[in-house]
C-alpha cells in the first residue's frame, strides 16, 4: 500500500494543509507494525468525514452570502414603499364602478400582504437585534439610525404639513396650487432619502446580527417571495390604473409582468426553500464549530 494514495480520500484544501503531516504519521504507524487494513479504513473514514464537513460549510457559506445585508436593504425598501403606497391609495377617490373597486381591493390586498411579510421578516430578527443592542452594539449603528430617524421626521413633518394645508382647500384649489405640488415633490424626495437611510441602517445592523439557521432559512424564503409580491403590486397597480384610466398599455404591462412572475416565481421560491433546508441541515451538523475561528482558519489556508 502506498501511504500517499490514502490522501485522495481528503479534500484538496485539507491535503494542502495537513497532508504531509498525516503521511508522516501514517509512515510512523506502519513502521510500528499496526495492521495496514485498519489504518487504511481509519484514514478513509477520516477523509470522507472531512469531505462531508467541507460540503456542509460550503453550503452554509453560500446561503449566508445569499441572505446578505443587501437582501435586507431590498426588503426594507420594498416594505416601506408598500407602506407609503398603501396610505396614498387608501386616500384615493372611490371608484365609480364595481370592477374598479375589485381592482383597487386587489391592489390594496397585495400591498398589505407584502408589507406584512416585510414586517414579519423584521420581527423574527428582532430578538437578535435586541441581543446585539444589549451586548453593547448600539454605538455601532447609532449614527446611521439617527440620520434615518432625522430624515424620516423631516419627510413625515413635511407631508403632514402639506396634508393639513390641502385639507383647508377645495380639490380645485389644490389642483391649481403650484406650491403644493412642489412641496409634495420635495417631501417625496425626502421620504426616498429616509427610506435609503433606513435601508443603510438595516444593512449595517444586519452585518452584526447572529441569526439562527431557522431564521436565516426563513429570511431566505421571504427574500424570494417578497420581490414577487412587489411584482404583484405592480401588476395590480397596472390593472387598477387600466380600470380607472382605460389605458390598454398599462394592462399589457401588467399582464406581461404577471406572466413573467408566474414563470419565474415558483422556481425561485422552490430554490430558496431547498437552500433553507440545506442551511438548517448544515447548521445542525456543525454545532460545535466556532464560526469566528473557522474564518480565521480559512484566512490561514488561503
Amino acid at each position, binding site marked *: 500500500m502506498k501511504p500517499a494514495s490514502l490522501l485522495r480520500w481528503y479534500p484538496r484544501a485539507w491535503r494542502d494543509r495537513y497532508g504531509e*503531516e*498525516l503521511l*508522516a*504519521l501514517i509512515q*510512523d504507524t506502519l513502521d510500528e507494525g499496526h495492521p495496514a487494513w485498519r489504518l487504511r479504513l481509519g484514514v478513509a473514514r*477520516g477523509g470522507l468525514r472531512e469531505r462531508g464537513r467541507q460540503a456542509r460549510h460550503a453550503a452554509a457559506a453560500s446561503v449566508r452570502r445569499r441572505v446578505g445585508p443587501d437582501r435586507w436593504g431590498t426588503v426594507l425598501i420594498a416594505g416601506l414603499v408598500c407602506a407609503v403606497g398603501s396610505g396614498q391609495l387608501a386616500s384615493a377617490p372611490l371608484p365609480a364602478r364595481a370592477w374598479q373597486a375589485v381592482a383597487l381591493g386587489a391592489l390594496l390586498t397585495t400591498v398589505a400582504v407584502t408589507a406584512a411579510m416585510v414586517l414579519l421578516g423584521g420581527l423574527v430578527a428582532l430578538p437578535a437585534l435586541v441581543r446585539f443592542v444589549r451586548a453593547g452594539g448600539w454605538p455601532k449603528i447609532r449614527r446611521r439610525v439617527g440620520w434615518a430617524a432625522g430624515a424620516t421626521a423631516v419627510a413625515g413633518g413635511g407631508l403632514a404639513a402639506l396634508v393639513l394645508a390641502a385639507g383647508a382647500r377645495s380639490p380645485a384649489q389644490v389642483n391649481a396650487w403650484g406650491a403644493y405640488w412642489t412641496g409634495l415633490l420635495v417631501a417625496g424626495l425626502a421620504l426616498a432619502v429616509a427610506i435609503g437611510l433606513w435601508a443603510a441602517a438595516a444593512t449595517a445592523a444586519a452585518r452584526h446580527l447572529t441569526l439562527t439557521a431557522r431564521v436565516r432559512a426563513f429570511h431566505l424564503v421571504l427574500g424570494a417571495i417578497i420581490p414577487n409580491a412587489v411584482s404583484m403590486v405592480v401588476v395590480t397597480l397596472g390593472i387598477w390604473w387600466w380600470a380607472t384610466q382605460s389605458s390598454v398599455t398599462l394592462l399589457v404591462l401588467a399582464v406581461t409582468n404577471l406572466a413573467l412572475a408566474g414563470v419565474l416565481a415558483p422556481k425561485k421560491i422552490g430554490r430558496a426553500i431547498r437552500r433553507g433546508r440545506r442551511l438548517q441541515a448544515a447548521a445542525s451538523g456543525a454545532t*460545535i*464549530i466556532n464560526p469566528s*475561528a473557522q474564518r480565521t482558519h480559512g484566512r490561514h489556508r488561503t
Partner: protein
Amino acid sequence: MAPSGLRRPNDPPLLILVSLADGPKHGHALAKDIEDFAGVTLGPGALYGAITRLAERGLIEPLGSDDRRRPYQITPPGSAALAEALADMRRVARAGLLRLGLKPV
C-alpha cells in the same frame, strides 16, 4: 457542560488537549502519549480529524518545523477549555464516587 464541545473523557479532542498540556508534540508522539495515559489508540485519521477541529477553534496551534512531523501546542483558550472540561468531569466523578460510598480522589 463545557461549551467548548469537550464532552466525554475519551473524546479525541480532549485527549489531545490533555496530552499537549505538558508541552508541544507532533502527531506520532501525541498518539503514543494518549495510548500511554488513557489506553486509547487513535489512528491517523481520527487523530488528524481532531487536530483539524482543535486548530480551527483556536484551541491548539502548529509550531514552525522543517520536518514533516509538525508539532502542535495548546493555546491559552485551549488551556481554559481543557480546565473547564476537566472541572466538569471532576464534579461528576466526585458526585458519583460519593454516591457509591467511595472516597473521592
